């Protein structure tokens, strides 16, 4: 019982943090206004942290609740489908890589960011049936690498500050 309450509290706090980071990201003017998918993915700092200091389940929970709430607060249904596709692919890749223990935090974060962008593009291709999006994908792979390095470094810093697992 006590454990359950603890889990719910943790999930709530981290979801709130992820939403705040998503909001902060909305306030920063976009680097390339014509390419709406290019973002830093700041909420992913929380997801990476949870993967290393809590568990995959809480990372999945926080990520999905975050997307649902951010969509309801600041966005629309179309954007929800893109975000969801990106988040699911990104989570799968990051959980797998975390388990395999092949990469550093930064590496896992890079793979997650690129997977996020690829998931979004695949969904857009499905919905819009456009071949032009292929070129977009290339830009998103590059930006995913840069975003992944930044998010990964932030995540690694946070993980260092909390040296033991959260229970």
């Amino acid at each position: 019982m006590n454990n359950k309450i603890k889990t719910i509290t943790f999930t709530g706090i981290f979801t709130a943090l992820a939403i705040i980071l998503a909001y902060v990201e909305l306030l920063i003017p976009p680097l390339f206004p014509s390419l709406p998918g290019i973002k830093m993915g700041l909420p992913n700092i929380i997801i990476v942290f949870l993967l290393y200091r809590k568990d995959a389940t809480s990372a999945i929970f926080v990520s999905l609740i975050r997307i649902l709430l951010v969509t309801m607060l600041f966005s629309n249904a179309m954007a929800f489908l893109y975000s969801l596709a990106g988040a699911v692919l990104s989570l799968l890749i990051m959980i797998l890589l975390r388990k395999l223990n092949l990469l550093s935090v930064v590496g896992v974060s890079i793979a997650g960011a690129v997977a996020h962008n690829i998931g979004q593009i695949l969904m857009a291709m499905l919905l819009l049936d456009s071949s032009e999006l292929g070129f977009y994908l290339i830009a998103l792979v590059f930006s995913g690498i840069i975003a992944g390095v930044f998010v990964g470094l932030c995540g690694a810093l946070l993980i260092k500050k909390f040296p033991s697992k959260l229970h």
Partner: protein
Amino acid sequence: MEKQKTTNKRHLRNDIILVAVLLLFAIACGIYLFFFRATGDAVKVTVNGKPYATYSLSENREVNIYTGNNKQLNRLIVKDGKAFIETATCPDKICAEHRAIFRDGESIVCLPNRVVVTVIKSDKTDAPDAVT
């Protein structure tokens, strides 16, 4: 401690491999898209920069494009979903030597006769389809 160090080294090496693979993938995608773009379904012909006609790529046809008071001719062939210029009265014959085009955005240009044939996806344009 020593073990942690080697693990970090291994991780860093793998990180670098990951980034290298991703960059190679992006470059390969770029090359692929550049050379193997999606196929279009019609060709748009312009003469002197003005729309002349649009022909669907789905049915074979042969069209004579007369320009310059009917003194100049480019013979456009649409066959098996591809378009090419068979013969032309222009001096350089570059257009006639151009390989058949079929990918969205590809074009054959005849500078002397000022004829441009461009592959389009007809759902992207509001031009009337298949004018003969």
